[in-house]
């Protein structure tokens, strides 16, 4: 069963843990923003919700560690990397577009820039794993 576990063992186990933390915190953040004050900054809050969904999908896909979930995880982590780069750049160039922060604002500065590093590590881990016989 070593191949079936491969994505979530070793460094993958640590990645799943960090992704889970971000999935939970992004979900809470997004739901509070959406429930309490959607009208104030709809773009930022919908982006928060989108980021939360991406983190949840990435966490579950990494933790499931099946051949199909590997593809899902690669897609989710790629979307995450694109998201943090685009939102990070836009939030630096046009701060007015984001009156309230999302998890990806200024490349994740509010979260110690972990949101910027995480997808890079995720892709390194996902793409660095060779497909095993049952992978």
């Amino acid at each position, binding site marked *: 069963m070593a191949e079936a576990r491969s994505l979530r*063992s070793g*460094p*993958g*186990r640590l990645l799943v*843990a960090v992704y*889970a933390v971000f999935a939970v915190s992004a979900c*809470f953040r997004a739901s509070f923003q959406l429930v*309490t004050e959607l009208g104030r900054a709809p773009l930022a809050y919908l982006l928060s919700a989108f980021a939360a969904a991406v983190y949840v999908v990435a966490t579950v896909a990494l933790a499931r560690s099946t051949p199909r979930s590997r593809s899902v995880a690669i897609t989710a982590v790629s979307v995450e990397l694109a998201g943090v780069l685009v939102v990070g750049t836009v939030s630096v160039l046009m701060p007015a577009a984001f009156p309230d922060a999302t998890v990806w604002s200024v490349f994740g500065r509010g979260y110690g820039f972990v949101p910027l590093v995480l997808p890079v590590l995720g892709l390194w881990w996902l793409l660095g794993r060779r497909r095993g016989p049952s992978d």
Partner: protein
Amino acid sequence: MIDVVAWVLVAACLALALWGVVGAVRAARPAGPQLLGMAVLEVALLVQAVVAGVRLVGGADVPSTGTVVAYLVVSVIVLPAGALWGIADRSRWGNGVIAVSCLTAAVLVVRLVQVWGG
């Protein structure tokens, strides 16, 4: 929040996180005393959550009750979840998971103090 108690909790979380990092660097699996420390810390976090919950029900004045409740709930889940996920891996990475969960608990308690104080 009782600030002094909260900061003691933060210090304990950080100490256990450091223990996890040291273990990971030394390529060790999570050790018994380490897990015992996490269990003691978990009890303290549970007590904090119950005390805070009682004060909330009693009408404590906090700017955002929902946020406080969310932090309290996650603060009692993060250590057991991290320990279970971490010890299942027979390598240094299990200690990495434990370090992340302890660090997350520390951040949660700090945020809790900030949110509670407004």
